């Protein structure tokens, strides 16, 4: 009777399972100070310090007076906290004959930034939408050329652009720089928007066409409301990129219209007089403040937007 024998065997083992209640149960315990954790968090800590130390030095130095800085202890916190360097950097520091500090550069930068960001994103999003959904003849070639533009070093185009802006009467003006930023933002932004719009279901576009919406109707009523994340990504890329730009600023503007970065350079690199490290640090921090704030506000949206653009479906 092999059958009954094997039946009894299974019954016996089932009993063992049923009665043994002492063994492991629930989630497996994880020791807090395992070797893995020590290495992991240790490494993270070291890397974080490595990255944050320069920032710390900058902040600390910008809050010290010059006599304290001359002592040479760059890591020590300020004995006497003073905001004078910040005030000086913002409103009094001299570049050449001009002694208005960074404030003028800041407003120049804002005047360049806002129209550049709005214009470049408006044009690029329509570009991307047309390339993704309205497959016109030669669209692929157009797109290839546009992407190719992203790989050409900017330096190659500096001089031709100077001539073109001169002919347009825009050389040295803020609007000239706005135009340059809009043009140079085009390849990467178009790519970004095209890929995002391609990832939206094509049937939505078809349904809207059957429903009688035209090119602009579909763009404004269907596509725009669905693409907040990618717009946030584009805004971040453009705001930080344009704000941090130095090359175009120094080439295409005059001292009156210098953006903040160029002015910062002029303050920090002035050859005459004493090197005021505290003012330099404060000025640098002031200039870096705008991109920093943008990252802090939009960090989460930024990650979501990048992920939305990367994952199809």
């Amino acid at each position, binding site marked *: 009777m092999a059958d009954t024998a094997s039946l009894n065997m299974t019954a016996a083992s089932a009993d063992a399972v049923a009665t043994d209640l002492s063994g492991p149960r629930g989630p497996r315990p994880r020791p807090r100070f395992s070797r893995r954790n020590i290495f992991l968090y240790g490494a993270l800590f070291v890397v974080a310090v490595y990255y944050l130390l320069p920032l710390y030095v900058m902040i600390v130095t910008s809050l010290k007076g010059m006599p304290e800085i001359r002592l040479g202890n760059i890591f020590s916190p300020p004995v006497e906290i003073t905001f004078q360097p910040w005030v000086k950097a913002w409103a009094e520091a001299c570049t050449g004959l001009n002694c208005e500090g960074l404030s003028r550069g800041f407003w120049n930068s804002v005047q360049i930034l806002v129209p550049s960001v709005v214009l470049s994103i408006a044009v690029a999003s329509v570009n991307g939408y047309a390339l993704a959904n309205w497959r016109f003849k030669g669209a692929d070639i157009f797109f290839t050329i546009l992407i190719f533009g992203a790989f050409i070093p900017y330096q190659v185009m500096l001089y031709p652009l100077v001539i073109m802006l001169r002919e347009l009467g825009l050389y040295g003006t803020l609007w000239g720089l706005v135009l340059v930023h809009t043009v140079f933002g085009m390849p990467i932004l178009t790519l970004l928007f095209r890929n995002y719009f391609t990832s939206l279901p094509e049937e939505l576009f078809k349904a809207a066409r059957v429903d009688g*919406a035209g090119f602009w*109707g579909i763009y404004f009523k269907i596509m725009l409301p669905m693409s907040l994340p990618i717009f946030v990504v584009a805004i971040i890329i453009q705001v930080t990129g344009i704000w941090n730009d130095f090359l175009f600023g120094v080439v295409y503007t005059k001292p009156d219209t210098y953006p903040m970065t160029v002015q910062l350079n002029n303050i920090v690199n002035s050859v005459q007089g004493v090197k005021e490290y505290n003012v330099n640090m404060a000025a640098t921090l002031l200039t870096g403040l705008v991109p920093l704030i943008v990252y802090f506000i939009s960090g989460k949206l930024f990650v979501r937007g990048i992920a939305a653009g990367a994952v199809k479906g």
Partner: protein
Amino acid sequence: MASVVVRDVSLNFGAVEVLKSLNIEVEKGEFLVLLGPSGCGKSTLLNCIAGLLDVTDGQIFINDKNVTWEQPKDRGIGMVFQSYALYPQMSVEGNLSFGLKNQRLPAAEIAERVKRASEILQIEPLLKRRPSALSGGQRQRVAIGRALVRDVDVFLFDEPLSNLDAKLRNELRVEIKRLHQRLANTMVYVTHDQIEAMTLADRIAVMRNGIIQQLDAPQAIYSRPINRFVAGFIGSPGMNFLEGTIEGGASPKFKAGDTAIDTKGYEFAEKPQAGTKAVFGVRPEHVMIGEMARSMPYTSEVEIEIVEPMGSDTLAWTKLGGQNFTFRTDSEYAPKEGEKVLLGFDPARASLFDAATDIRL
């Protein structure tokens, strides 16, 4: 009067011919199903009719008007998509009225039509909701509603039920049929599901590689498939195919190995030549066993190899003429594996194909 006419329509994507000189006429109020495996061009054809794709050659008429160059919105069609394609940022009401607002209809008229469509589809309680707050079945109803409010004569369905689970699919299938009875407008319906095709269609167009293989009523396609592809594609489980030769005589015999089947009663298209290599097709559900088999013109005793019980009925595998052969039988009287049974069928209900050309003999 023809409602939709497709005349000599070809479509190439670069060097790939997706549609090859297709011709279809859909009568007014007819339910036509385009059926075929994926990649056969059925959805492409539907997109051409809708005007979402430009044809390479040929003409398309809707309601006796040449619409080959017209925009989708001007063709008098409504379309339902597989993925529903509801506008996610609009409420159900917004989805239904979007097309009407684009037509600049007066608000009262829009409200009237939305109300009527939502009554027909029983989606009135959902009007204020967003598509993301709806279930799959509700979404597809809204998608149908969006076609409904347009008040058009031709409905185009692009695999509308493929994203739904089996139970919902059956429910909505019946509902689409009911809708067709009620509205009596022309419907062109793309699917790869033969059950949907058989149950819904007035006529089915079976497509393969951009060519319509057979365009006929469902029953005709089922019982008299025009070639081996259609025969194998329609019917589940698939038709049995036995390979062999035709032997001449007053009534030709089909011979496979040591099995000879008298084809008495089978309507040949033309009298076949003796020695022709042929394929003999029998549907599993046309095979009888046991007592029932005795009355059949052809009988043979076989040994059962595998039995697959499926609840409502049972599928049994055996060999006939040395080739695999399946038949379907009532689960109550299902044979056991290894058992010898008498099976029988009527060759008049079978299909014979030329082995070289796959065309029905």
